[in-house]
């Protein structure tokens, strides 16, 4: 088990290194400098700006300095937002994305599992079809459409919610619905198909034969066995969702970090691009790593088989 963890960890570090290098190389290959403006300035001012940002040093040197800073968790200073360190930008904005993300994950798991379990239990009957139709709707409508529609219907027309911002608990409702719709659908379908298999397994028949009540079977045996694919999916979902959705945050005016993924590239803000990419990559790898461990913890078979493979 320990070797399993250590190996995964080392791979994680290696992947990160490759990622950082690749991003650095690609970014410098793209035309367009971070110092663009519609109004050209005198060559002297251009030179001042370049010296200030260290763009006149050779590439290899820039790369070396950057790697050294990374090891000290210093992600550098943003070029476009001149007096903000990348750390500060991420710090200030991440908390909003994180809050919305956590609410969204909880909603996805709760709603998705409910839909999926109901669908599995009432397999091929009306409730199954209803759940699956709802799931497909959530999956098929892109957030780009769902968010403005929700905003227009529920905030502008019916005035139930505020149009934008995250000031009170009610303000979380609309963005969460828009953000979770896809994952609810996905989780529902996952649980449903896994659970249908599980329901036909031998040990469930044994439990029924033993005289266990229906809901007890579902709670104590079915759900735990069906959760495994969801755990794996959650690893990926968590990293994606807590780093913010560009579209949802734009439409509901949430000051999260989603927009920086796009904006930093448009601005050619080198340190911010790399900082955000590294941050996201670390989060993603850590979440998947945790999901792997959780999987091994939850399913005893993995532990035994896993360690056998290692030997």
């Amino acid at each position: 088990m320990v070797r399993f963890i250590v190996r995964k960890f080392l791979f994680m570090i290696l992947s990160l290194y490759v990622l950082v290098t690749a991003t650095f190389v690609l970014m410098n290959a793209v035309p367009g400098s971070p110092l663009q403006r519609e109004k050209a300035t005198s060559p002297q001012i251009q030179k001042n700006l370049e010296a200030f940002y260290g763009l006149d040093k050779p590439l290899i040197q820039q790369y070396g300095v950057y790697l050294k800073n990374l090891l000290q968790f210093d992600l550098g200073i943003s070029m476009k937002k001149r007096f903000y360190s990348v750390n500060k930008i991420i710090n200030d904005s991440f908390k909003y994305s994180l809050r919305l993300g956590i609410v969204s994950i909880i909603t996805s798991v709760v709603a998705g599992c409910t839909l999926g379990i109901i669908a599995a239990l009432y397999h091929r009957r009306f409730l199954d079809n209803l759940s699956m139709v709802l799931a497909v709707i959530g999956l098929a409508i892109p957030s780009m459409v769902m968010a403005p529609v929700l905003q227009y219907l529920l905030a502008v027309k019916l005035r139930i919610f505020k149009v934008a911002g995250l000031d009170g608990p009610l303000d979380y409702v609309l963005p969460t619905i828009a953000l979770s719709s896809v994952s609810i659908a996905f989780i529902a379908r996952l649980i449903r198909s896994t659970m249908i298999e599980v329901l036909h397994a031998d040990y469930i028949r044994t439990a029924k034969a033993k005289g266990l009540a229906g809901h007890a079977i579902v709670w104590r045996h079915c759900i735990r066995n069906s959760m495994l694919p969801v755990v794996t999916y959650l690893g990926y979902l968590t990293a994606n969702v807590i780093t913010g959705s560009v579209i949802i945050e734009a439409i509901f005016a949430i000051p999260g970090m989603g927009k920086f993924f796009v904006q930093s590239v448009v601005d050619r803000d080198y340190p911010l691009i790399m900082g955000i990419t590294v941050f996201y990559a670390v989060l993603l790898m850590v979440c998947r790593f945790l999901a792997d461990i959780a999987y091994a913890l939850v399913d005893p078979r993995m532990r035994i088989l896993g360690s056998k493979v290692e030997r």
Partner: protein
Amino acid sequence: MRLRNLLTVMLTLVLVGSLLAACTGGNKESSPSASPSAGSSSEPGASSSPEPQGPPKEFRFTLGSEPPSLDPALYTDAQSHIVGLGLFEGLYRLDPDGNAVPALAESYEVSDDGKTYTFKLRKDAKWTNGDPVTAHDFEYSWKRILAPETAADYAYMLFYLENAEQYNAGEASADQVGVKALDDYTLEVKLISATPYFLDIITHNSYWPVNKNAVEGKPDWATDVKTLVTNGPFKLTEWVHGGKLVLTKNPDYYAKDKINFDIVTITLVEEDSTVFNMFQTDQIDWIGAQAGSVPTDQVEQVLQSGAGQVKAIASTYYYLYNTTKKPFNNVKIRKAFSMAIDRQAIIDNVTKANQQPAFALVPPSIRGTDGKSFREMYPDSGYFQENVEEAKRLLAEGLQEEGLSQFPQVTLLYNTNEGHKAIAEAIVDQWRKNLGVEVKLANQEWGTFLETRDAQQFDIARAGWGADFNHPINFSYDLIHSKSGNNDGRYANSRVDELLDQAILSTDEKDAMAKIAEAEKIAIADDMAVLPIYYYTTVTMVKPGFVNVVSDYAGHLNWVYGDKQ
């Protein structure tokens, strides 16, 4: 087994805990934070004015992007300027009509040769940290923006001062720059040559003062509420990065009785549709003039229903010709293309915001002399006409002159944007119908686009130019002088250069404008240096009851002297 249960319980606690934190944390962020500096946001009847204390007057609007820094030496975008207008004040300021009026300068004297200005400052202006505003602040700030270390984009705005350009290039010392504080309230400015519009120039944010004690040694002083020190009619009391800014009335402002708003809340919202929805649900009071935009698909309906107004602003939309290579090196071909489009049709069917067709470069809201606008004094209607037959003839002649048997492959380049795309497609279509030429379309993302244009790797390219200050020289020198870095089409005419150089050195306002007009006429009527299309407008919407919140001559929101009735 037990370990797993424990982990499950812990995980649940963590999740529930963060959910609680999310909800309560959200509430805390939104309530107005206690201001660290003296003075609270509500006025408990401490003022001497006899007006009854009603509920605080609040004005709310949005901005599409966050000011990177509130340091006036570093503003490059309209949004920073809109916020800065309420926080800082310089020697002179621009009223909403674009006229320079005294602010911190009580009076001034000019030497006979027009090169030396002596300003006398008011003695009752204060910084928010208690320091008085003095002439030393101005000397410090002007030298600071010119200093190479500051790396200010708009440092060139101060190049009218003696030795300013040299100091910025590291070839002179700060002491040699032509600005000096003779005493606490007297500022002496020495210019390279007489500049009749100097008073307009000093309204620009690059000439606003900053407080030395607040700035020295603190490079990020202007990015946080706790360290920002200002001298204007409002003070910053809250700043949630990426979220909102809250400004409250400055009780120490010398003219506080002229200021009516108590609180101004600025929310940062990028998405146009969200801004519009916020306006519809009374979450904000204003849209337009770089403080939020009405979504393009709503413009027509908003104007028709009277919910919004259109106002001309000092910006021009045009296409650049690359005069360095075929076929647009030929003046007849350039004229043909300019004459073969129907500007009004584009305005009526594509942009739909009552813009005005442009036949020159200087927009109508730029001032002239004697209370008239520049365009009133020198109308552009005579420069050229839209005439398809004439255009066809000119095209044929031009091709012949260049020795081309048929029109070569050319591309129209624009920066990626739905609006520019629609206009470009319409114009290409007009050329196809009227001239029988096929022009290809290409679009690039903004940064790449600017580089391509700068390197003359285009045939025709979209361009737009907005006023830095209220004078026609800003729309002529910068765009058609051969030495200008913004003249991407590399148009060059020595007579035009000569006229513009003379205009800059001229001591008589009328004479300078006449020379600018002549230069513009040569560049357009004779040489068709660029393809003017329209003069910009802005669509604004405001809630009833608000007065004196307007789009200024440059199309920026001017809200400082507004009131709610």
